[in-house]
Structures are given as structure tokens and as C-alpha cells.
């Protein structure tokens, strides 16, 4: 995965990488005949099962990399492929608030790994001109991690080719509560200063205060690892999203998995368009 990313960015490569890149471009050329989704979201499930398969320890010793290293590179590869295809928005579910219930050493290991990856992410996203957002309750993160996240967001604010949203310390319920709390606070302030015209808090106001207001609703939500649930991810935004579950573990996801998910989406595109149109009319 790492070689694939580096080769595509022309940081290193060989003839095989060039050949596979050419084949991939041809496949994407065919795919672009149909509708390409504007926003794809990923539930990156299967990292721990993959680590067990590869016999990686949780602190990232043996095997030439950390437990979540392979997962990180898989995300970078997907980001690259999506950009090549013309998918503008990519969202990834990196860490749920519920994951804080894990054993402290695992949480700490994950946080340390994330901090290390932010530095690498910084280089890669600038190369690819990707704007990065972090969606979630960032107050739950350590000061260092939160500061790194803010720095990365600011550093990439000017890019517009693609938008990568990383959901960290995120759950849908927390997002909804946050949006409701913010809306109530804004209404209270509005009433206090006499500049609130609405009788009640409207749905539009709640939606504007969502963490995910930075991106349109996802067209496809892809979950790896074989499970069929959203696990508190984008429950609000997924009304008309095509839910695609695949058995492959996240670090093993490849171009064909993405192609298949998009082909499935294309088959139902008319239906989704009709549903969205109906909702707008109402």
C-alpha cells in the first residue's frame, strides 16, 4: 500500500507500479462513463483482525509496522483513488467516542500512532492538495493531538481539489447533541440581544451546527470487515446513502473493492436521485 502511494506521488516506483497505475487509469476511465459519487465515507473496520493475521502486537512492534500503520496506508490509497476518480469528499471514521472504553494501553497506543501519522498526513495531503477537516468532539483528545489536528486543518484550508474529513472522537449521537446544544445557545444569545426572529429552533439551524456540515451528505458509505451496521457513524447524514458492506478487512481494501462499490451505486443512482429530489420538493 505504501509503495503504491509513493509511486503515484512519484516519490519512488518501478515498471510494475507504472503498469498497474496505467491499468487503474483505464478502469477508472470506464467507471467515469457512469455517475461518480461526490462523497464517499469509510468505516475502517478490521484493523485488529488484520493485525492478528499478520501477528502484529498492539504497541506496533513486529512485522515492520504498527498495528494501525497498514490501516493508515489503506486510507491514503483510497484517498488517492478517489481523487483520481473525481470523488471530491472523502470521510473516514478513525476513532469513535465509544472506543475510549477500550483498555487504556490500547487507547494510548492508538493516540500515539495517530499523532505520528498526522506528520505523514501533513506531507501527503499537501502533495495531493487535499483540505483536511476533523469532525468530532475534539475536547476529548489530548492537547497535543488536538493542536496537531487544528494545525493540519489550518495548513490545508486553502486547498480545494479534495476534502478529507477524519471523524475522531466522534459518534452520531454526540454530533446531534452538540448541534442541538449549539442551536439552543445561539437562540439564547439571540433572544438576549434581541436579534432572534424565529419562534422556534428550525431544522436548518440544527443541521448547520453538525460537525459534518463541512461536507454534503455521503453518496456511499463503505464498511469493511463484513459487518452490516453503521456503528453510530453518520446516522443523520445517511438518509439517502448507499450502504455498502464488504468482507475484506480495512488494511486489505483495494481498487477492485472501491470499483465494485461504485458500480453498485451506479446501478441504483436513479433511485437515489429520485428520493433526494422528492425530499427537496417537500
Amino acid at each position, binding site marked *: 500500500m505504501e509503495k503504491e502511494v509513493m509511486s503515484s506521488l512519484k516519490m519512488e516506483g518501478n515498471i510494475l507500479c507504472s503498469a498497474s497505475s496505467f491499468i487503474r487509469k483505464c478502469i477508472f*476511465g*470506464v*467507471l*467515469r*462513463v*457512469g455517475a461518480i459519487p461526490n462523497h464517499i465515507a469509510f468505516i475502517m*473496520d478490521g484493523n*485488529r483482525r488484520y493485525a*492478528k493475521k499478520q501477528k502484529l502486537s498492539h504497541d506496533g512492534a513486529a512485522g515492520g509496522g504498527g498495528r494501525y500503520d497498514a490501516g493508515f496506508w489503506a486510507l491514503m490509497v483510497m484517498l488517492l483513488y478517489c481523487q483520481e476518480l473525481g470523488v471530491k469528499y472523502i470521510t473516514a471514521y478513525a476513532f*469513535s*467516542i*465509544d*472506543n475510549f*472504553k*477500550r*483498555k487504556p494501553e*490500547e487507547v494510548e497506543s492508538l493516540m500515539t500512532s495517530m499523532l505520528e501519522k498526522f506528520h505523514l498526513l501533513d506531507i501527503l495531503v499537501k502533495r495531493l492538495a487535499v483540505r483536511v477537516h476533523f469532525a468530532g468532539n475534539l475536547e476529548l483528545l489530548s492537547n497535543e493531538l488536538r493542536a496537531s489536528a487544528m494545525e493540519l486543518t489550518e495548513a490545508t484550508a486553502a486547498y480545494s481539489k479534495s476534502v478529507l474529513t477524519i471523524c475522531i472522537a466522534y*459518534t*452520531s*449521537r454526540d454530533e*446531534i*447533541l452538540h448541534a*442541538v*446544544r449549539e*442551536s*439552543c445557545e445561539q*437562540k*439564547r444569545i439571540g*433572544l438576549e440581544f434581541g436579534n432572534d426572529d424565529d419562534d422556534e*429552533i*428550525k*431544522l436548518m*439551524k*440544527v*443541521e448547520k451546527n453538525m460537525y459534518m456540515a463541512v461536507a454534503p451528505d455521503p453518496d456511499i458509505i463503505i464498511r469493511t*470487515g463484513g*459487518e*452490516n*451496521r*453503521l*456503528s*453510530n457513524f453518520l*446516522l*443523520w447524514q*445517511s*438518509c*439517502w*446513502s*448507499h*450502504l*455498502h458492506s464488504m468482507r475484506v478487512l480495512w488494511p486489505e481494501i483495494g481498487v477492485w473493492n472501491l470499483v465494485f462499490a461504485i*458500480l453498485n451505486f*451506479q*446501478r*441504483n443512482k436513479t*433511485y*437515489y436521485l429520485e*428520493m433526494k429530489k422528492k*425530499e427537496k420538493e*417537500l
Partner: protein
Amino acid sequence: MDFSNESRVLHRCSAQIGNLLLRSLWHLVHFIISICNFTLDIANVLESYLISSGLLGRYKSLHVAKLRYLAIVIESEGAYQTSKIIELLQWLEAVGVKHVCLYDNDGRSSGFSLSLGSLGILKKSKDFILENLDGAILFQDAHENNVLLDQQHMTLEFVSFSDGKEAVAKAANVLFMKYSKSGVTDQNQKEKIFTESQMSEALKTVGSGGPELDLLLVYGPARCHLGFPAWRIKYTEIVHMGLLKSMNYGSLIKAIYKFTMVRQNYGKCSFDLHYKL
């Protein structure tokens, strides 16, 4: 000059041929996928027949007790097929499912008033469905009359699109009234108002409360939950069942069986990787 014109024409022709080739390949790929899906459908029909006739042993005993709350999402066209819906509910009752939530994506409310146009298709057919299903009662009535949920008969809930996002906006107003009455400015005190349990209560107050669902079966052309109330599908298994008009008993049993085999750890840690995230 002639040479540049000719090269332009050549370039245009080759681009057109290229586009035609790409389109043909795209149609070919989708045609192959249709064939594969058709083959899979036939296999599923055969398997469903085997399940229905009891020839597949593992589906004979279902641990239905694990399935406390089931939701059926039906796309708009299917929601008018009331007889099919009643048949489906009768199958679920026979299997032993105690609580079913029926949802269709129709029904938008205007403000706080609930006009007939704001009810979903299923909500409008509620009385007819209840009449034709022996002993089934409304979930709200069961709660109000303190009827035990381990009763003999099924409880039904009817939910529509207006119970989703719009209900959350209404619940926000309920919480705002609580917030403004309390005169709270302290952050800690504020946190006590905006909690998940308070939100659940507020949703109940506006008539859109309900338990979290275990399994959600989607009867429609695509695997999409069609705006089912987000608050209730946190860890819900979502299974696509195809169109309602093609529903069959075997597929239903298979979906419930698969659900009973799933083990969740709700995001918590386990180094035993038989547990899943």
C-alpha cells in the same frame, strides 16, 4: 493548413471512438453484474425454498429472544401493498418476534401541527393493519397501559420521515425551554441538560420516542435506510431484503438467523478477536 485540419478531424474521430469504446465497456461491465446478480437471486430463491420447507437444519431453531426490537423499512411504493405488509407481520408473529416498528419515508410535518399529509403511508394504514393482525397492539398503548412486553401478542409501532430529523428539531425546542427556564450558565450544569437520556425524553415528549433497534430490514430497491430516525439506529444491523413484492419467508428467517449469530462489543476493547467492533 490542410494538415492541421486533418489532424484535428483525426483527433476528434479518435476521441469519439475512444468514448464509444468506454461506453461499450461500461455497459458490458454492468451487464455482467446484472447476470451475476440474477444468478445470485436464483441461488437465494432456492435457498429460501429450502429454509421454508425446513430442509436446512440450522434455521429450524431461532434464538428469537435476542431480537427484541425489529424495524421494517419499506420504500413508498411498497408501503401501499398493505396485504403484503400484513403477510410479513404474520410471518414475524409466527416466528416469535414481539416488537415490530414499521417505517416508510413519506410524511413531512409543517411546524408542530400534525395534518393528515404529514403522516406516512403506513401511519395512514395503521388501523387497517391492526384490524387484520390478530391481537397486535400499538407499542404506545402497551406502554401507557403498562402491559408487559413479554406478552403473547405483537406490539407495533408506525414511524415516518417526520419522526427523524424534524422530530430532533422539535426536541431541540423542548430542551431549549428546559435550558432557558433553568437560567443555567455554568458549563457543568449545561452538560446535565444536553445528555442522551434528556434527548430521548425530549423525543418521547414530541411523540417520536422509542427504543433502540436491534435489526432493520429494508424492503426496497437499494440498501439505504431512507431516513429512519437516526437516534434509534446506533448499533442496528441493517439488512437489504429486496423489493416487498418479492419477499419470501426463507429470506426473512435467514436474516433473523444471521442477526442472532452476530456478536457486538459496541466499540469497546477486546484482544479476543472473535468479538467485533
